[in-house]
């Protein structure tokens, strides 16, 4: 196939709307443009409202990472008011958040990512029949088992957060419900059942053994469970080489608690770890249908370009830190946190992103169990925060898909400015003023496209390996 342009969409199993334009020559993608074709306007909606309204509205940016949005809003408001939550409240908020992230990782693997390997184009591969049996969309065993395990895990959220998604249980002062001794044993029971599912079906072995893997060779030798099946496919299709990243990773640090983070914050570039410093952060608007200046989110604004000018091609702004793109997500978190396997996979493609997620799923189980064991039923779970009259604050958290930031300015008891940078805004950002493409746009270059393919399967693997959330992107 030579010299053609392909517009790929609607792109499903990506949570929201996505369109990808590809220039194809010599059977491979020469350049890619990523379009988020929906504009929603949440930042504008928040202007002039009581600050606490952010706790009701921002979770509704996203139905899949609703708790992440809650938690970013909570931290932004707490920072603006100079308030600290009750330590046990912060620990429960972390547990609630970890449950959402674990559920998201599982849903991504079972429902969004793996079904692509059941496409007829793979019918001649030795792993094909097994993959169809396990992962066929809507019908396979794995999607059903996955949602059942997820549903049961989320009973923890019924107890602690009332419902999922869209809870008001997490507040700047802590959480609205103090768990008692019976909640604690019930939560442990749900976690144990989830562990049994992960070990029995997903990993086919001990989570601690999986989390202890340090090298890619040892990873590829893991041959049990659905993870083993995926690794067989990854080896056969060389998914490590497909859609490679820049090797620059950013993490805001997951689960901030009084005792520190569950997974540490930081920046990883050129094989070196640096502390997180966001002073050089801007959102570039050159290729987004947005008006206004390139600016730091603390002073940014969101003014949609109703003309949808021709030089721009998406509603997604382009975040750049010190002029550079960064990839975010589970692999970024695990690299920054210093896990040896993640560090060894750094810069990799589809395999690295998916393995990073599986590694994190295994590690998160232990983290959730520790948090549940640490529940002190007699403690205070809330130290109520006074209403914020004026101040500025940033809420930096990690959604399943990566770094999520809320920046708020409160004036006279009302929201004067609210800016959000979602994980997929980083990963699926468009070109910037220097014409540097975003991480997905870069990762797609060189992707093989077979003759006659209209929705190239390799492109789909790469896109979904990022676990994009478009509804967040276009808040």
């Amino acid at each position, binding site marked *: 196939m030579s010299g053609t342009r392909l517009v790929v969409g609607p*792109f499903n199993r990506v949570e929201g709307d996505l369109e990808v334009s590809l220039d194809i020559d010599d059977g491979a993608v020469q350049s890619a443009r990523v379009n988020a074709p929906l504009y929603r306007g949440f930042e504008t909606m928040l202007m002039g409202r009581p600050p606490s309204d952010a706790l009701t509205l921002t979770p509704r940016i996203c139905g899949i990472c609703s708790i992440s949005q809650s938690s970013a809003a909570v931290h932004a408001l707490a920072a603006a008011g100079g308030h600290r939550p009750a330590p046990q409240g912060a620990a429960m908020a972390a547990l609630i958040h970890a449950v959402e992230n674990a559920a998201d990782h599982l849903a991504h693997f079972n429902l969004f990512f793996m079904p692509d390997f059941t496409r007829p184009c793979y019918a001649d591969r030795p792993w094909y029949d097994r993959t169809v049996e396990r992962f066929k969309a809507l019908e396979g065993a794995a999607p059903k088992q996955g949602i059942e395990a997820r549903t049961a895990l989320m009973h923890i959220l019924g107890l602690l957060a009332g419902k999922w998604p869209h809870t008001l249980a997490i507040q700047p002062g802590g959480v609205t419900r103090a768990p008692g001794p019976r909640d604690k044993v019930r939560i442990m029971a749900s976690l144990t059942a989830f562990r049994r599912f992960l070990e029995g079906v997903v990993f086919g072995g001990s989570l601690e053994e999986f989390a202890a893997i340090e090298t890619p060779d040892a990873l590829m030798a893991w041959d049990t469970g659905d993870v083993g099946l995926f690794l067989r496919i990854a080896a056969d299709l060389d998914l490590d080489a497909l859609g490679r990243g820049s090797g620059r990773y950013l993490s805001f640090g997951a689960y901030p608690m009084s005792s520190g983070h569950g997974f540490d914050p930081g920046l990883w570039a050129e094989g070196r770890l640096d502390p997180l410093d966001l002073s050089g952060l801007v959102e570039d608007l050159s290729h987004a249908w947005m008006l206004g200046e390139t600016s730091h989110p603390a002073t940014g604004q969101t003014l*949609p370009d109703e003309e949808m000018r021709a030089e721009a091609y998406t509603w997604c702004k382009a975040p750049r830190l010190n002029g550079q793109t960064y990839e975010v997500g589970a692999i970024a978190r695990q690299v920054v946190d210093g896990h040896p396997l993640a560090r060894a996979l750094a810069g990799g493609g589809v395999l690295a992103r998916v393995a990073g997620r599986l590694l994190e799923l295994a590690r998160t189980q232990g983290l959730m169990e520790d948090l549940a064991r640490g529940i002190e039923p007699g403690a205070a779970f809330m130290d109520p925060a006074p209403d914020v009259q004026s101040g500025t604050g940033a809420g930096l958290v990690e959604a399943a898909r990566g770094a999520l930031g809320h920046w708020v300015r409160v004036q006279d008891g009302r929201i004067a400015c609210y800016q959000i940078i979602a994980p997929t805004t980083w990963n699926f950002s468009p070109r910037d003023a220097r014409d540097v493409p975003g991480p997905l746009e870069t990762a797609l270059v060189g992707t093989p496209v077979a003759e006659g393919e209209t929705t190239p399967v390799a492109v789909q693997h790469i896109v979904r390996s990022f676990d994009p959330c478009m509804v967040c992107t276009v808040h």
Partner: protein
Amino acid sequence: MNVLWLQTSGCGGCTMSVLCADAPNFFDLLDNAGVRILWHPALSVESGEEVIALLERIVRGDVPLDVLCVEGAIARGPRGTGRYQMLSGTGRSMFDWALELAPLAQHVVAVGSCAAFGGVSSAGGNPSDAAGLQYEGSHAGGILPPEFRGRAGLPVVNVAGCPTHPDWVTETLMLLASDALGPTDLDALARPRFYAEHLVHHGCPKNEFYEYKASATRLCEIGCMMEHLGCVGTQAVGDCNIRPWNGSGSCTRAGYPCISCTAPEFEEPKHAFTETPKVAGIPVGLPSDMPKAWFMALASLSKAATPERLSKNAVADRVEILPSPRKPRG
């Protein structure tokens, strides 16, 4: 019965919620009821061209459409063009697609408050000019006129909620599949009566506190949240405290107020969500079907009669004073 599911301008949370359907799982539940998913954006394998081809077959009438589920509001902006949401790969807006597909369906189901009324997608000045399918807020007529009917004769069925409860969706689909949802099974806002004939207040564990107006003053105390913390469970429709969420939950069970997410315009309460607006110290928005004077009289009487157990527990994080055992009969 086949179902085409589209996600318009929303958060995708209703799908995420529906996947929490308990026993049997969502897929088996629908399959067992003879409900077949033609395409769902989060669940089906088909992407790109394959989806466009399916939509074209539906438009041509080659594939009859039994149910069109729409999740999310419809963005009509900028300036009525609908270009704030284009259906990828088609060069056409979702607004356009929704108008084309709705009249082809036997039933149109609005999944969630955005699709029903506009919901949060239309909050705060409505920057994307979003509307529901057949309502704009509480006004009849959304992108479809008030007189619109699906081919089988029902208005758009509004499975409102933010998010909607998994069972509200699955039971609506199962009722439609068994031809058991008629016009009289819907309330005045076309919400299925099986959940809209209840109030959130029904079965709330804080009912005893409510009876005595023993009220929580802060979000963490276990008293009733009507007087100070914005709870509108006495006016909000939904069986949230009768059939629980995610195992055993509900908003009020988790210690935060019901904000009536099943109602049009819940996103604009005109006060902070977690505060009760008051006039001269008296909460406005008392139960809608009770004379105010009576309410006030009953409230002051019951306040005076509040047992210490309730007045103390109401402002505590957990039960501090236990119900006292009956004295043994002498």
